[in-house]
């Protein structure tokens, strides 16, 4: 499969997706389709390599979850995105599709406070369990005081 074929296949199967670029292919889908799209990327585009999952805080426009996966045989790169919408911080978990999403979603919860629905073990990963707030949100000031170290 080539990147162009992959692009065409995405457009055919997910008609609502915004698609851009070829390397990587950037596809934005609705949050409802998130898990189905991840499964499609893994099974049909054969993007089995899980690179990373993260989020971007677009302030008033809300949070955006970004995932990068690759097809290592055909060298297809896919950047999947979904906008959660203003004030929403719930996103379905793609852990059933990609094992690597386990720690990445925990990190994303830790830093952005996004609750990944269906994640079996959503705890903080880098910060301490008693940390208050989610530091990578734009509303979290750099000089926010933190509780003393235990």
């Amino acid at each position, binding site marked *: 499969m080539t990147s162009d074929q992959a692009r065409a296949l995405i457009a055919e199967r997910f008609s609502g997706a915004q698609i851009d670029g070829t390397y*990587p292919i950037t596809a934005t889908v609705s949050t409802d389709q998130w898990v189905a799209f991840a499964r499609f990327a893994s099974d049909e585009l054969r993007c*089995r*390599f*899980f*690179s*990373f999952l*993260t989020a*971007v*805080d677009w302030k008033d426009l809300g949070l955006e979850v*970004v995932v*990068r996966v690759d097809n*290592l045989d055909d*060298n297809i*790169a896919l*950047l999947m995105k979904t906008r959660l919408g203003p004030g929403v911080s719930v996103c379905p978990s793609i852990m059933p599709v*990609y*094992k*690597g999403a*386990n*720690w990445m979603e925990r990190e994303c*919860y830790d*830093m952005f*406070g996004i609750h990944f629905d269906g994640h*079996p*073990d*959503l*705890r*903080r*990963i*880098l*910060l*301490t*369990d008693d940390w208050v707030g989610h*530091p*990578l949100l734009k509303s*979290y000031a*750099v000089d926010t005081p933190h509780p003393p170290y235990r």
Partner: protein
Amino acid sequence: MSAPTVTPKRVELDYTGSERLTMNMGPQHPSAHGVFRAVLTLEGETVIDVDSVIGYLHRCHEKLSETLTYAQYPSIASKTDYVAAMTSEFAYVRAAEVIGKFEVPKRAQYLRVITAELQRVASHLLWLGTWCMDMGGALGGGATIFLYCIRERELILDLFESLVGARLLYGFFQVGGVRYDIPSGWADSCRQTVDVIDQRISEYERMLENNPFFMARAQGVGVISRELAESVGISGPLLRGSGVAWDLRRADPYSSYEDFEFKVPVETAGDCFARYRVRMVEFRESLKIVRQALDKLPEGPISSRPGLKSVAQTRVPKGEAYVRVEGARGEVGCYLVADGSAKPYRMKWRGASFSNLAILPHIIPGHKVADIVAIMGSVDPVFGEVDR
């Protein structure tokens, strides 16, 4: 808001005994090479579950990068993976260059390749030395190979010192090129160093592979299948040790890597020994690339943006990019969102060690406690990059 309370997953194996022990390995355990705590559930000597606790070295790199300019951050970037500092700087400046479409002169590209490859050799030397020291007594008295490897790594650090002035964290890369050109005589001493290391690697190979204890501890231990490797997202020597011929220098070439000839080693066994073999071949391939780059080093400027007068002078237009380089530990990536100012709007580190370490809970259960040390060493995590 706090996390929902969830009972951690337990892996049940066939076990007829009655004792189950929870043991902390870390946060300060010599085999972790950093601060890492593994909460092990044991049945006898056998590990049945592991909960990894990380974050001890978290320094909020991603938040910090939003407050520092494109000229300031590269030297901070080197503190993520401090054992291969050149690589993280490389990923960050390339991300800014890709979004801003900044040109990088050919000579700078070659200098980047030379330093990145020397860095890979230095990092692999530290890995080999510490890994073999962890498996200790089995290798004929502990620290022998560690001292040998450190001796060789020292030669590379000397080269970096005469190039940059620093031995561990460099600040060598800048957006648009590199900061320093090589001083006179540097190329010759680099060639000599490369020859010395090349010779000694063969010596280590003989020393280790003729040692039945080393072989017993490395072969068949910590096997990672290709499916698991891809799904978790491990990269670099780990992925190639599991039978995937994936090297970013070949698959997605950057900084003139297409000009050089080198092999991408692949092993199919997926065990600690396979990962060891991949790295041993990589040593030589890196040295080969350094030689070629020194031979073909073009004349010309070393930066397209020399003479920065203020730290806020580099502005990157609105845009985003995910840029990755092949570091010593695998895919080191930087996902950068720029808003047209002198600082990034958002920057995400894809640390190779973070993803590589995430493989541990999948492969450790079923092994003995002593095997954890061998497996950890073969994964080669650097906790600065895990915790960022």
